[in-house]
């Protein structure tokens, strides 16, 4: 790929290079969006139409597929509700307490800081899967199976979010401001809630979205904890759909179900995309 680039750029002027860039970007865009287009089209077609082969134009069975799905065996509404509860609560707790942790490290000088901060950075990369065994045992000992608590509470200790908040504070939370609040007689906890949190709003928004999305999409841990049909979140229902004898399934329903899990996130993303893309760049290490 790079050789190709080399050959074409050496002799070619800026216009030719620009054309090549646009062509490659168009192809990449196609590969990013094509699947969602097919998903949308297929969600509007009936099982019979789907068996007959692919068509690039939508049909008119979207609502029928949807009512069939809702009246079927999969508990869609409770799945949606459960996913919403878990993701919203995780995102809220995660950003609030990660900001608090970052504030503790950023604004105070205390002995343990010297090793706690590097420690949090060290554990940042440890995947949740490697402690899943102990986690599942703990949850069953605490009798918290089929409960959302073990999916929500752990998000309070999120090293990645903490690190992002810490980085953001370094650039936009001057310590003099906290000093001024103290002189005005504001308590430390009140200072945090009424002065620090509002200043952190942009970072909080970005991280709330990321935490919400990753919790919404999470499959591994919820699948180990939630067994009751009424408690299952959307990713577990999708996996159930996959292990069902899908040949007997009404494919229109399958596509609507997938669309139902994907499109809410896409809509939110398109509304907030500017902040999200900037947020990813901000979170990177400064080389």
């Amino acid at each position, binding site marked *: *790929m790079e050789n190709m680039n*080399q050959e074409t*750029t050496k002799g070619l002027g800026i216009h030719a*290079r*620009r054309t090549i*860039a*646009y062509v490659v*970007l168009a192809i*990449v*865009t196609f*590969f*990013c969006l094509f699947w969602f287009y097919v998903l949308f089209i*297929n969600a509007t077609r009936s099982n019979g139409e789907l*068996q007959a082969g692919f068509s690039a134009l939508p049909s008119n069975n979207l609502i029928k597929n949807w009512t069939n799905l809702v009246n079927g065996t999969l508990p869609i509404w409770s799945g949606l509700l459960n996913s919403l509860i878990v993701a919203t609560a995780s995102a809220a707790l995660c950003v609030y*307490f990660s900001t*608090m*942790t970052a*504030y*503790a*490290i950023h*604004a105070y*000088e*205390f002995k343990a800081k010297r090793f*706690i901060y590097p420690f949090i*950075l*060290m554990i*940042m*990369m*440890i995947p949740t899967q*490697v*402690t*899943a*065994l*102990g986690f599942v045992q*703990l949850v069953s000992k605490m009798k918290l199976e089929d409960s959302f608590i073990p999916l929500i*509470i752990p998000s309070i*200790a999120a090293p990645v979010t903490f690190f992002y908040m810490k980085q953001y504070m370094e650039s936009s939370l001057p310590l003099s401001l906290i000093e001024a609040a103290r002189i005005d007689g504001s308590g*430390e*906890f009140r200072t945090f809630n009424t002065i620090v949190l509002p200043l952190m709003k942009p970072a909080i928004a970005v991280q709330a979205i990321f935490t919400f999305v990753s919790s*919404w*999409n999470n*499959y*591994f841990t919820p699948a*180990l904890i939630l067994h009751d049909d009424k408690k299952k979140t*959307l*990713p577990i229902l*999708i*996996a159930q759909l*996959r*292990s069902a004898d899908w040949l007997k399934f009404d494919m229109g329903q399958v596509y609507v179900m*997938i669309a139902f899990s*994907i499109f809410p*996130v896409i809509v939110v993303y398109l509304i907030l*995309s500017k902040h999200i*893309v900037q947020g*990813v*760049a901000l979170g*990177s290490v*400064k*080389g």
Partner: protein
Amino acid sequence: MKGKAVRYNKWGYIFLMPFIIVYVVFQLIPMVTTIYNSFFENYMSGLNQIGPNFVGFDNYVSLFSSGDIWIYAKNTMILWIMCFIPQILLSLLLGAWFSDVRLKLKGARFFKTVIYLPNLIMASAFSMLFFTLFSDGGPINSILMQIGIIDTPYKFLSNVGSTRGLIAFMNCLMWFGNTTILLMAGMMGIDTSLFEAAEVDGATSTQVFFQITLPLLRPILVYVMITSLIGGLQLFDVPQILTNGTGDPMRSTMTLIMFLNKHLYSKNYGMAGALSVVLFIITGILSLVIFKVTGNDKRKG
């Protein structure tokens, strides 16, 4: 004055409390019990519970001698490499284009939005989508037959190459946008006077890329590569849903975490523990490398 500072600083501990308590309960204790479990024989044989009996390092010995772990480690590495190489090349190319001031690409925001989109999609739903799209009677086969590339449906999920290819392709699609944005942020951070000087000296954009951009980007490249490797070791959702947990064809797409998941479901806690500890050590070493490459700068900053 000094007394006052001390009084404030106890709030450092108070504000750290929630993090520390939750971390200890939900991550540290599980980690300790996971390691503890790895030294015990503890599984279900039919309906009989065997153990827990202390067996020392026996679980580790049987884990490595059974050979399965090597197959799954190889699968995981192959899938990661198949995903990472095209991903990094594409990301470097796109990153260089987006950050090139002379090129002045229009619609950069639109393209960035589009390439980041797949990263936010639920991996299990995306895999289910690909499973239906690439099934024998699915839309992709239907399209390929309509335009006359093939006469009979191609069985994407019955061939090792195409199944692995699909998994790698999906992961690449989900992560190249993220990598592009990270690399681009790094490229934007390079002192523009370097590029101007190179331009004055008559360097082509290819020379600029290989002589200036790439060497200065090395810390970020290492960071991207190792985080991607750690992510690659965790590969689970996509192959699990795509193959319904079987890792077929012929266990060629069974990853390490799928193997762990199998032990967790069959309640073979001894083996699950040993496997977790092995994965923990590998990610621990990789994290240390990141910490060495980037951590020092962070603490200063």
